[in-house]
């Protein structure tokens, strides 16, 4: 399973701005709520998080130390 951005359905107002900015069609409105569609093309650009006014979408980074 590929890691994908996270939607908080309680915060999503269904405006669809994130869908417009997504370059890999990984987002869709289903029943007025944004839903994630798994996509290998998602390169974690975080634009969807950046445009969301309600903070409903997040692209968290895992921070790791490179093994020497």
């Amino acid at each position, binding site marked *: 399973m590929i*890691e994908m951005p996270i939607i908080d359905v309680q915060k999503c107002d269904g*405006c669809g*701005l994130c*869908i*417009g*900015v*997504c*370059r890999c069609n990984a987002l869709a409105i289903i029943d007025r709520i944004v839903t994630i569609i798994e996509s290998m093309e*998602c*390169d*974690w650009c*975080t*634009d969807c*998080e*950046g*445009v969301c*006014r309600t*903070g409903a979408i*997040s*692209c*968290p*980074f*895992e*921070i*790791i*130390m*490179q093994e020497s």
Partner: protein
Amino acid sequence: MAVQLEFLKGIPYFSGLGSVELESISKLIFEKAIDRAETVVFEGEPAAYLYFVASGAVKVFKTSAEGKEQILSIVRPGESFNDVPIFDGGPNPASARAMGPVLLYGVKRNDMETIFRNHPPIALNVINVLARRVRQLVSLVEDLSFRHVISRVARILFEHVGGEVGRGPRLTQQEMAAMAGTAREVVGRSLKALEEEGAIKLDRHRIIITDKEALQKIMGVPS
């Protein structure tokens, strides 16, 4: 397609105007559809139009001589961009590019003057819009001028390293911005700068600290 009066009502510029006034204004507004990654306004060029975003999102940004980008704002539906050169007659101070498919409502510079003359109450609305914009830009200037954001972002990364892959804490750029006391846009640029310094590597949803000593140096920790 006709400009939607209902949409115009929701634009802060035209707040408080009645249907008759909006109808007359709508005749001076044209629609422009642009594709993802299309640049609609180029920094330094003469300004001909004021734009309102009807749908989609547009990023307004400056580009350095080295090609580095600093986002000034993300313009969402109902909001405007390119206001300043329309009112002061100077060149575009920044570029604007579509983040996806975007529909814009545009007004020619001369037509905006006509709208002002015919509907003076708009002036107060525009002052409010520009005052908000100044406040936002002052905050960004403060971030970029006085705060060593890169060193703080470096420290945040250092303090949030997870032990085991897939089990460590996760942070969004928004959360890092809140921790660093800065704007999300500044965090994005800081991460890119740290990557260019060779301290980290951005690997999709992972930030890999590739040079711990370089990161500590940026943090201001003596090695």
